[in-house]
């Protein structure tokens, strides 16, 4: 045998071994979950592990709290991306039939879509009912379908108006309580040469949907028990009214059109480029994490209730809010359900969460606790924002009916918002286009649209 042949054979064999090694590794991890690469430290190495994907900024503390207090189970935590990127990985794992974690953090608006794909486990058979009493009716409705429960709520997103006290004071404006007042105030600030009063970012379609719901729009009606039927009403009058209102603000140059959570937006927040920020209770945590409200800006922010359409009949809406769900790929579903119920449910973690304002806790024990209620919120210059604004907003929240294709819907609403921001369509036209696109999509996915 000549040398060339030997060399070739050796290299081929080596390569084959390498490839086999790759697939071997993947097989080993396919038993439900990957619990070898944890971001956190495992305290009790002998206990069975449950893998978790989550992106809460204070998750490291939460996981340590859980692992330190449990000898029978340990959490192996990974950040698989924040929002969209995590859902994309989960979607891929569902398609592949392996690679999903045991427990996954999902926003409430994503649940229906994954439930429909049978990717989540009904937790009612694993004692989800035991923790129902900890949550308000509205937040429990968001995670339930009939008698089935597909996730345990952690964090809510009651919406309010965050504003720059210094900017409003400078122009002699009181925080507007209705949307009509909001527009008047915006005009006043603009006429005086002030900054944009607010912002219509195209990348926060969930917030815009919540604002449409505030006026009474019911974009989707869908019940998992009746899988094939869906109602879509994106071109209803309330939806059009809200889109027209914001399109009008943009047209008059009263609000900015910058995408939110970007570096440009954050720097604008710091520099006082936006007088108000229509946002959820968890927003301050993300803003402080990016350096907003520090140094000279300390205490310049305050919160006020969300402006209303009809002040005699106020409506409370929610943006975001997240949950822990158990995936159908979980190796031990019962154990995973215990983790979903217990993770981020202990006092120490919840306190850390609300103190840093990275979550708005939905656990009633916290909502009713004296410490939480009377907390003088640092970011809002010592304002008791929980008691005055967020707790009433959360208590008034009635739940929302999400579509099973939130990712697609949000992408389309984003595209329409971009058109509104560019002045290419009116609110009416955007609503009509959106309705057409979503009805077509639902039909192409095999739904009957009513």
């Amino acid at each position: 045998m000549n040398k060339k042949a030997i060399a070739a054979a050796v290299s081929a064999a080596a390569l084959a071994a390498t490839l086999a090694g790759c697939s071997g590794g993947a097989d080993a991890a396919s038993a439900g979950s990957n619990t070898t690469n944890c971001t956190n430290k495992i305290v009790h190495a002998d206990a069975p592990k449950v893998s978790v994907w989550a992106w809460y900024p204070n998750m490291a503390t939460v996981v340590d709290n859980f692992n330190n207090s449990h000898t029978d189970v340990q959490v192996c935590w990974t950040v698989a991306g924040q929002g969209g990127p995590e859902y994309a990985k989960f979607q891929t794992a569902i398609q592949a039939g392996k690679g999903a974690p045991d427990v996954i953090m999902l926003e409430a608006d994503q649940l229906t879509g994954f439930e429909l794909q049978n990717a989540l486990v009904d937790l009612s058979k694993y004692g989800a009912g035991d923790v129902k009493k900890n949550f308000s009716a509205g937040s429990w409705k968001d995670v339930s379908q009939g008698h089935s429960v597909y996730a345990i709520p952690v964090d809510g997103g009651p919406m309010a108006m965050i504003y720059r006290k210094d900017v409003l004071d400078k122009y002699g404006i009181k925080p507007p309580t209705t949307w009509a007042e909001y527009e008047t105030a915006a005009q006043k600030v603009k006429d005086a040469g002030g900054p944009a009063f607010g912002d219509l970012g195209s990348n926060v379609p969930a917030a815009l949907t919540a604002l449409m719901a505030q006026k009474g729009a019911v974009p989707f009606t869908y019940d998992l028990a009746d899988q094939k039927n869906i109602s879509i009403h994106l071109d209803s009058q309330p939806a059009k009214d809200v889109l027209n209102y914001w399109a009008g603000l943009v047209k008059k140059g009263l609000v900015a059109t910058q995408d939110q959570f970007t570096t440009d937006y954050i720097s604008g927040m710091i520099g006082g480029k936006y007088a108000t920020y229509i946002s959820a209770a968890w927003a301050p945590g993300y803003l402080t994490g990016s350096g907003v409200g520090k140094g000279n800006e300390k205490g310049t922010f305050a919160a006020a209730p969300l402006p209303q359409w009809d002040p005699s009949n106020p409506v409370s809406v929610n943006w975001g809010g997240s949950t822990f769900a158990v995936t159908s790929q979980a190796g031990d579903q019962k154990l995973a359900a215990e983790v979903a119920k217990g993770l981020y449910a202990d006092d120490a973690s919840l306190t850390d969460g609300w103190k840093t304002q990275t979550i708005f806790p939905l656990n009633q024990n916290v909502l009713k606790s004296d410490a939480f209620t009377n907390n003088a919120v640092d970011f809002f210059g010592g304002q008791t924002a929980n008691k005055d604004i967020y707790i009433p907003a959360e208590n008034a929240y009635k739940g929302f009916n999400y579509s099973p294709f939130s990712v697609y819907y949000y992408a389309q609403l984003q595209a329409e918002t971009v058109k509104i921001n560019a002045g290419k369509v009116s609110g009416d036209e955007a609503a009509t286009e959106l309705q057409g696109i979503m009805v077509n999509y639902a039909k192409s996915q095999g739904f009957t649209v009513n």
Partner: protein
Amino acid sequence: MAVHGSTVTSLPHTSTPDKVNPPPPPERRIRSRSDRMNARRARTGWLFIAPFGVVFVAFLLAPLAYALYLSLFTKGLATGTRFSGLENYLHAFSDPQFLKGVWFVVRFSLVLIPVQMAVSLAAALVLDHLTTRLARFSRLMIFLPYAVPAVIGALMWGFLYSPTFGPLEQLFSLFHASAPFLLSQDNVFYGLLNVVTWQWAGYYMIIIYAALQGIDPTLYEAAKIDGASERQVAFRIKIPLVSSALVLILIFALIGTLQFFSEPQILGPVANGSITPDFTPNIYAFNLAFGYAQFNYASAISFSLGIVVFIAVYIFMFATRKKGSNLS
């Protein structure tokens, strides 16, 4: 081993004329010995190809076959999977979102490729003409953007284009004007054009430069003796002689641009929504699969894009064919 005969004859060390067309051997003994030798050579050849072959099959052919298989089925969120044949393809070529993406990349190619060619050809001709130290330094500098990974390059441009942090804004504010946002809906085409040209022109410049270096200098001497000016040398000798390198670049650029993905995907989050989920066919396929759970349709979109690329490249090769060239 007879099946492998063609491979053996195409190996360089066996392609002497008598092996390509072996004359009928006079004696049986000789033939059997050469057969054995051929068989052993074939085995060695296959072993050498094996490392590549394994990777090729595992990471290209197998995924392709699987995607093709997927694309022949349809699954709606509310329905089960069913075999649908070519339905997904018919749908793709009547899907306005896909066609919009295709139209964008075609338009983008039509503008980008001539710009890139002009920039890289001009740079190569200048650098070929100069032999100073500055030329070597410039060559490196022009090539450098290609050495920056596409993702990092795109991130960097995201900051350069930023209306808050970018140098454009600072420049315009000197004149009390506000800078145009180069990723806005109306400008994003040019914003991306700039990023891609910056990224690739240096690489193409190197290819052309290498081809220029391969030209026999006696041709220039002959041209000079015949009274040709530098300009004439460049246009009448250099460019025609590097035309095959130019064709190669064109094909690279065409395929790359039709599959446009990384730069818009990275710049998407800072583009205020002007880079939509159906911006280019590849981005559309990505979002269909991983955002909307439509793996079957995403596979069909990917293959449809493959068809578009194939047609475009074929048209191009047909248009640039030379008589007697193997490109036609």
